[in-house]
């Protein structure tokens, strides 16, 4: 086949009139470029282009970006860039602990996501003996922070989350998501009930997805039917709206309590399930 054997196929009456200086090489070069984009790979430089050709390539990028799901950022990229930025600014002592907890989780996510069986073994070492007990009803509370054990913190302006919208929030010790539902603002813990990896919101599927082992939760926090294992539901976090702000009832970051068992809880990688205790 060759791009010029199309005489018998009038592509359009308009085209016939166009005195085009197009070459087969141009068709093939653009085609190769598009195929690279479809594989999400950096395309080779096309060489010197006229401004018009450059626009053609930019149109290819724009159209590829409109392919369903193509422009969704990779969760691993999101967490590794966040770590890099935190190192860049050199965070304050308060946030340092959160950074450490988060880094621990995201490193675990990277390892587990990337290396299969070897990684599973490594994770077992890292978090204790671990495959936790996802079905154990005591491992994960239904309410993350019970009355009297936390404090209210404002995390967003109420008008900033549209009806149906989901916003991730991070407080000193808790990472979660708040949803604006018909019955008000509802918040859930943002840590997977499997091993505590941080979930990301998948707006297309309306699920919370875990980068580590493919765990998936519906927007109301229950294990999704297509989650590999029906993990415990995500603990809820109390919310209120006051002064135009959405508030969540969360725990304070704690300093290690010597009276507590010094062995880290294998379910959480060191702390109370669902939130980080530096």
């Amino acid at each position: 086949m060759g791009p010029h054997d199309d005489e018998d196929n009038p592509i359009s009456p308009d085209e016939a009139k166009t005195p085009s200086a197009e070459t087969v090489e141009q068709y093939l070069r653009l085609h190769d470029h598009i195929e690279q984009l479809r594989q999400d790979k950096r395309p080779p430089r096309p060489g010197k282009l006229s401004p018009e050709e450059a626009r053609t390539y930019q149109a290819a990028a724009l159209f590829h970006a409109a392919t369903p799901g193509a422009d969704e950022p990779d969760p691993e990229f999101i967490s590794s860039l966040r770590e890099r930025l935190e190192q860049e600014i050199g965070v304050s002592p308060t946030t340092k602990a959160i950074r450490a907890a988060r880094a621990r989780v995201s490193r675990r996510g990277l390892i587990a996501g990337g290396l299969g069986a070897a990684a599973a073994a490594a994770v077992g070492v890292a978090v204790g003996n671990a495959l936790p007990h996802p079905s154990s009803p005591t491992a994960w509370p239904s309410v993350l922070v019970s009355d009297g054990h936390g404090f209210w913190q404002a995390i967003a302006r109420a008008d900033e989350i549209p009806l149906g919208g989901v916003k991730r929030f991070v407080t000193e010790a808790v990472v979660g998501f708040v949803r604006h539902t018909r019955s008000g603002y509802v918040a859930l813990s943002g840590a997977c009930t499997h091993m505590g990896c941080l979930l990301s919101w998948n707006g297309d599927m309306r699920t919370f997805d875990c980068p580590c082992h493919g765990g998936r939760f519906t927007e109301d926090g229950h294990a999704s039917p297509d989650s590999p294992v029906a993990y415990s539901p995500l603990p809820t976090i109390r919310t209120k709206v006051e002064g135009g702000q959405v508030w969540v009832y969360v725990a304070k970051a704690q300093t290690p309590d010597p009276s507590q068992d010094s062995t880290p809880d294998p379910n959480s990688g060191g702390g109370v399930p669902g939130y980080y205790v530096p």
Partner: protein
Amino acid sequence: MSLRKARSVENSQMRAKDPPDPTHDGERLQRLYEDNLHVIYRFIYSKVGNREEAEDLTSQVFIKAVRSLDSERATASIQSWLFQVARTTIADHWRSFYQLRARSLDDLLEAGWEGPAESAGNPAPAPPQDQVRRILERLPDHYREVLTYRFLHNLSIKETALRMGLSEANVKVLQFRALKKAGRLELEGL
């Protein structure tokens, strides 16, 4: 509006309504990152069309941003400022990628390739799906058809050829011409 002018307008707006914020670096970063990562990544993706470059350029934008993080900047302004950083970063990238002379790139930008999103009040450009839909409406049927099959339905050349009753070679010619026309329409700002 020039970049510098846009920035000074933003700054003066900000200072008026946003007193110095005592929140620490971590929270400022949090706000900067959580609120903007997706929108900036998608914007860049719509310009480069692949994950590898989109990740590189997004990282560059955020690293530039945290290095000059200004505690007095309000949330809305952070976003329009990030878009400016992203546009400059993309322009630098294109300059080397397409080996364009700086002049022709400026022509492109001035002619509105970057879209009408320069105003500080509305920093977020339309998502690529919307831009594409508007372009498709303006294309002749066969161009619209080939681009819909190839990109919106993500079909291979072969599948597209089958559906359109064309040879595979024809499809490659057609997608070239359709994208060329799309690029021209986009430049005209539709």
